[in-house]
């Protein structure tokens, strides 16, 4: 299968215009010594029909979340994606466009991104948002990099932060010259600390005493970074109210499919004072020569293509299309929908937790804590084994969290889970644990 439109005649005519006798001449610049004399060891091209058959076969070897009832979370959630989201975000004028370098030809994407930034600010209670980052983990890295100074190079991270986000931060730290330090309970920042990172709700679903942590953070003159779940903000106090300086989150749940982990949406919002430290694209409103309102990429002096090795982020391609989906999704949800969805998640998670704890041997891993849509239970066996056995019964039972013990399983419950599914899940767990 080929997509180039050229006919042999056209190729001949074009060669004539450029004064070449063959297309291969165009590669004469390549020294013979490095020319690939053989064909690539890749199968010959196929028709679309054959490709689709091949890939349908691969896809059929997977068990997706419309097949396995999903109680897995850990940063990616099975929220419902309404049809309208991709009917619009999937318009080809959006998805086949590049970064809007010519604003007059890109007002569509630019305005949606402006709307995205606006909605993220409303959601988080922060002043400014950028136009997206790769995902929640990279957003954390970028947030930390906003806070580093020559005097402050220490980074304190709560033990409630997602382990993969923490690993991503560690990797970045090796380059940027810091080693994230994990704290349990409350942080005790010193004057050399750049940032304190708290995830709320945390990786076990627990609601953290964020205000206290951030008060301590600010006393030490450090920056407070909160990792949040955007779909919790209909019912939970937003980072802005909790006094976060920078709010970062994984936006997958906002109308994006699970996609086996990506493409997702990195959300980063901050205070106006830090806007020039922010990474990535930012869209601003302005006017054209006729005085009509329009949108452009702004504050580009922050970015790599201008600042080069002075830039404090290297991001170029971001996740604009996921931000477009999130914008449509948030417009679909609206304030009432956001709150209703939050209540449903919280209520269904609480119901699931109480039903599960009736199973002999099952207990809450962190009794006395409050949670949102996710919670951790101890099971009387290896959590991994339990999860694997639950697959044969048609469930993704949750996410094992070895950090807290081999017997800890973190269970997530979204608005998609009906009471009937929850009850079937609980009884299946009962059987698995009884056997």
């Amino acid at each position: 299968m080929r997509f180039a439109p050229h006919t042999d005649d056209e190729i001949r005519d074009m060669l004539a215009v450029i004064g070449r006798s063959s297309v291969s001449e165009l590669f004469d610049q390549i020294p013979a010594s490095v020319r690939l004399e053989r064909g690539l060891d890749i199968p010959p091209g196929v028709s679309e029909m054959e490709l689709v058959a091949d890939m349908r076969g691969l896809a059929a070897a997977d068990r997706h979340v419309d097949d396995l009832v999903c109680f897995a979370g850990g940063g990616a959630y099975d929220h419902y994606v309404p049809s309208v989201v991709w009917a619009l975000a999937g318009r080809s004028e959006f998805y086949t466009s590049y970064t809007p370098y010519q604003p007059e030809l890109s007002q569509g994407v630019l305005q949606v991104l402006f709307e995205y930034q606006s909605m993220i600010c409303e959601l988080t209670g922060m002043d400014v948002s950028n136009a997206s980052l790769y995902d929640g983990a990279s957003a954390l890295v970028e947030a930390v990099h906003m806070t580093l100074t020559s005097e402050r190079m220490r980074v304190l991270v709560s033990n409630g932060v997602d382990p993969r986000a923490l690993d991503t931060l560690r990797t970045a730290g090796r380059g940027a010259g810091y080693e994230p330090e994990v704290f349990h309970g409350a942080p005790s920042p010193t004057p050399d600390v750049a940032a304190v990172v708290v995830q709320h709700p945390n990786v076990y679903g627990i609601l953290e005493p964020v205000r206290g942590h951030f008060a301590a953070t600010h006393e030490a003159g450090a920056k407070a970074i909160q990792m949040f779940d955007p779909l919790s903000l209909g019912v939970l106090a937003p980072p802005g109210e909790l006094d976060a300086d920078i709010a970062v989150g994984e936006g997958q749940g906002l109308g994006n499919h699970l996609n086996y982990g990506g493409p997702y949406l990195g959300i980063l919002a901050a205070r106006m004072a830090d806007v020039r430290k922010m990474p990535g694209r930012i869209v601003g409103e302005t006017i054209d020569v006729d005085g009509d309102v329009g949108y452009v990429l702004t504050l580009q002096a922050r970015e790599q293509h201008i600042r080069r090795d002075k830039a404090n982020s290297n991001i170029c391609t971001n996740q604009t299309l996921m931000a477009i989906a999130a914008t449509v999704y948030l417009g679909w949800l609206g304030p009432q929908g956001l709150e209703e969805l939050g209540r449903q998640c919280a209520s269904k998670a609480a119901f699931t937790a109480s039903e599960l704890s009736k199973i002999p041997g099952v207990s809450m891993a962190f009794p006395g804590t409050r949670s949102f849509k996710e919670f951790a239970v101890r099971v009387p066996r290896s959590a991994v084994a339990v999860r694997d056995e639950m697959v044969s019964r048609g469930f993704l039972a949750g996410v094992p969290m070895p950090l807290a013990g081999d017997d800890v399983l973190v269970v997530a419950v979204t608005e998609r889970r009906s009471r009937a599914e929850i009850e079937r899940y609980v009884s299946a767990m009962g059987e698995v644990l009884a056997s």
Partner: protein
Amino acid sequence: MSEGAPIRTQGPTSVRGTIMDRSVPGRRASSLAPLDVPAVAIPDEHRRQGPPGLPQVAEIDLVRHYTRLSQMNHGVDTGPYPLGSCTMKYNPKAAETVAAMAGFQRLHPLQPDSTVQGMLELLWRLEQALCEVTGMARATLQPPAGACGEMTGLLIMRAYHGAQQDGPSTRTKVLIPDAAHGTNPASVRLAGFEAVSVPSDARGLVDVDALGPLVDEQVAGLMLTNPNTLGLFEERIEEVTSMLHDVGALVYYDGANLNAILGQCRPGDMGFDIVHINTHKTFATPHGGGGPGAGPVGVKEHLVDFLPAPIVERDDDGSFRWEHDRPRSIGRLHGFNGNMGVLVRAYAYVFLHGADGLAEVSELAALNANYMASLLAEDFPLAYPDTPPMHEFVSSADTLKRDTGVRAMDVAKRVIDLGYHPSTVYFPLVVDEAMMIEPTETESKETLDGLAAAFRRAATEARAQPDLLYQAPLTTPVRRLDEARAARHLKLRWQIESSDPSGDTPG
């Protein structure tokens, strides 16, 4: 060729105001299933006080607003998109079909490996193909874009050198050509190295003589794209790579231009140790107005241990799994394992084309670029006429500017009124009044003829009626926008007071 006003579409006029401006208190699009379990209350200290100011609109409001906005946007599906260095080629619709299969799109990233064997096999096959294309031993599919791929490669460099002299590396410098893309120096700095710039010679190639003195034991590596950022092939590449190898340094291949050499030659065979690939360029995965992308990184055998964890392994029984236990790995660079939805599309592109198809891609990309360059040579001479371009080329509007005062940006805006998306302008920075054009292989001869005619007409008009260019564009939803003002009076979000009355525009 096509001229005059871009097409006019139907129905209510140009979207005025944002979706927030359409908000009507109490209106709502969403509906959820009734709560079928006991409702629980959120603890007071955690409860949100006021609701967020999200728009209150109906589904039909969303549909009309965003359908209209989409029509106000240029994409490959609406016309040629000759942005140099961005490789905006046709995105096969077949890739969208397969990416939408529930078996790929609806997988949770933390499912047991046993439940995602199809996905893992796809990733395995794709990795094999990418290694074959680049001449590398293994690759990670984790980086979500090229810049992250650069970071991955540079951290591998760092880890490698550290391992050589077991201890933190004393190699502090990474060399990059002056024309390099901004992400290169930025990545270098964030990876903890110092970026040292390598000058280009008169032919637009790395100045090998100037390179010599820069190469020493403090150099961790060199980053290069070949063809380089000017679209020119570095013919002395082997000399360059061995110079670096001689001092124990590594050579990094920025894959942004890999589409130019598919099936013709391979970075691995030129002596590169590390390669990143921009799937949204080389393999036509849709760029979505700025992203997503994917930036797989391939390495030679001696660097495989340092690749990020996890990596897909195939067991003797033919089953696949994620291998997390990689003691020498640099760690992870993504919250999960990469932009899978993008990689699925890249797989579709690679296997639709196959070996021959991929080689033809680079051939026709070069043909189109050279054809376009010839058509424009008179009005917009090549910045480096002595070296034949490959898949893209850099022309300059410098003479035009000297003759008429008209700048590359004015030409670009006029080209818009003539019905086309213009080229990249003012990149690379090393060329004055740069106009960087990458037609890609999926544009037809008649499309290039039309595009060239528009550029040439703009040049003619620059001499006769320069005002046409200064005033341009006239035919777009908005005209030239005041970027300075945007940066001076920062308005980065909608707020009530800003609500524009005409924002109540229906439908």
